[in-house]
């Protein structure tokens, strides 16, 4: 049972729908967003020249940096009186990236998330514990609006507070949950420690997880300990938030709502489009959004795409679980962090050098980020309190700017290992 007829369109019908929507979007961005007019003109392409879906390759890419360069609303294609929601993620140069939704975009968003909830069999009789972060981050509210629209009872429990989450889960009788896979495992571990009988005390039967990479072993483990179906959700705020793609119960590949988000896979180095089935970077063009349409967005996520029919009957293309990044982005408990963002925050704090090393670790099932920072020799002092204050200041500033908890270790100058004179910036010990 699918939510929308577009999910089962025949190949040709889908392609012609996509082409109509693409052409309409290109016309709109060309005339409404100066950035696109300029970049299309520079590439010597006019929207009229795009006559097939394959012609899309001729258009330039849009990158995260383009959103930052046009902070906050420069890439919006509608006047602000039509925007009903603004979300934002942390930025590299102190400026966040900003995304805006019209009422029409909110309808799309709730629809595409709704499709994935339907893949998990959710109906108005379900109770959803939405253990995904609320706020500027698109995760929590994205799931929330869609669930509400489907008349699912939502418990807006957000992230953290594990013991309270378990209490709610049991007493409120949630049948479904959202969150990061690592939080799901952490929750199970704490449940056991607190004496819950997982299969007996909870009514959970399905879960929707995303925002961080998960191996098939991890997914199976979550399925097993909770006794639930595992549905993976993929999304990114620049495209819409969660709901770009999701997995049904027949496969661990994710159906991408390509009637709204047209996918391409490119070689991240040559930037050439790759044939179906080959691994590369996912590039998405939104073909229905009004507030912030985005053309050929480089997601940075590495995956493959297939159009092999799925047993569930959906004809939408499927992407494989994200297997990596084409850049140095780290995913820490579902929050995206670039090393350059950490560097930027540290650079605004006196008393430390920019010789630092980021270490990503696993603590139990959760991610833990540590940053070793070399002290500035001029800050050497005889007072433990001053140094502790400096450490706290670094931690607080990273939390405020990047929304992540980081443990700072102050280390002596020149103590961080260098390779060929250059400090090794990131050590990921999670894999």
């Amino acid at each position, binding site marked *: 049972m699918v939510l929308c007829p577009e999910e089962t369109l025949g190949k040709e019908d889908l392609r012609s729908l996509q082409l109509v929507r693409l052409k309409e979007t290109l016309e709109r961005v060309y005339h409404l967003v100066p950035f696109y007019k300029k970049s299309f003109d520079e590439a010597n392409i006019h929207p009229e020249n795009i006559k097939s879906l394959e012609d899309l390759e001729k258009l330039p890419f849009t990158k995260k940096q383009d959103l930052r360069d046009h902070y906050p609303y420069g890439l919006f294609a509608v006047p602000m009186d039509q925007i009903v929601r603004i979300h934002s993620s942390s930025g590299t140069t102190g400026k966040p990236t900003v995304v805006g939704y019209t009422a029409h975009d909110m309808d799309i968003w709730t629809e595409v998330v709704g499709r994935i909830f339907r893949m998990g069999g959710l109906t108005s009789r379900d109770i959803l514990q939405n253990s995904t972060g609320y706020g500027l981050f698109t995760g929590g509210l994205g799931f929330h609006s869609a669930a509400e629209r489907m008349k699912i009872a939502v418990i807006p429990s957000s992230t953290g507070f594990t013991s309270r989450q378990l209490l709610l889960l049991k007493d409120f009788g949630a049948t479904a949950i959202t969150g990061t896979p690592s939080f799901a495992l952490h929750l199970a571990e704490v449940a056991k420690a607190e004496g819950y009988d997982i299969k007996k005390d909870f009514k959970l039967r399905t879960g929707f997880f995303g925002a961080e990479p998960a191996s098939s072993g991890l997914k199976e483990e979550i399925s097993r300990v909770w006794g639930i179906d595992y549905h993976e959700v993929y999304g990114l705020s620049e495209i819409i938030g969660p709901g770009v793609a999701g997995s049904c119960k027949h496969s661990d590949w994710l159906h991408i709502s390509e009637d709204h988000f047209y996918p391409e896979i490119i070689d991240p180095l040559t930037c050439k489009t790759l044939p179906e089935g080959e691994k590369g970077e996912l590039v998405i063009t939104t073909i229905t959004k009004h507030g912030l349409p985005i053309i050929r967005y480089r997601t940075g996520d590495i995956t493959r795409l297939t159009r092999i029919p799925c047993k569930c009957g959906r004809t939408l293309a499927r992407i494989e679980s994200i297997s990596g990044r084409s850049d140095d982005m780290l995913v820490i408990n579902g929050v995206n962090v670039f090393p350059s963002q950490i560097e930027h925050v540290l650079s605004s704090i006196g008393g430390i050098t920019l010789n630092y090393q980021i270490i990503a670790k696993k603590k139990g099932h959760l991610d833990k980020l540590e940053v070793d920072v070399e*002290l500035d020799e001029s800050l*050497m*002092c*005889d007072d*433990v309190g001053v*140094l502790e204050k400096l*450490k706290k200041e670094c931690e607080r500033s990273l939390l405020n700017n990047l929304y992540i908890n980081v443990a700072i270790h*102050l280390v*002596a100058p020149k103590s961080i290992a260098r390779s060929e004179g250059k400090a090794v910036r990131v050590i990921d010990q999670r894999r």
Partner: protein
Amino acid sequence: MDSYKLEQLTVFVENRTGELLAITSILEKEGISITSIMLADSSEFGLLRLLTPEISRAKEVLLGNGFMAQTTQVLGVRIENHIGSFSRVVRILGWANIDIRYTYTVNEKNDGIFIFKVDDNLLEKGAKALLDGGVSLIKHEDL
């Protein structure tokens, strides 16, 4: 009053196996003797405070080996071996509204030497209050 200001060396120590040994080995190799040593630690790092007759050479060799080291000024008082003598010193500083940041001892045969760290701008005032109170302050060459 300046002659009563003692120079102490403060060294940043990472909370890591072998870190303290690395420092003491360097001093040993250079033939620098340690009069007194005190390690103040937080959960993450420590500050090692050293008294040595060769303060500037000790600082130089530690800096040369990549350690962070800094000289700090402290006060030292000789205290007789009887109950209440330490209290007396603390009381004098308290009356003068001078907070003690930290203190440690230098062992001698009979008497004890206590080292006090007070805020830098209160060093003179502290030294004067102690002298006025009849406490015997020590000079660098007494160590």
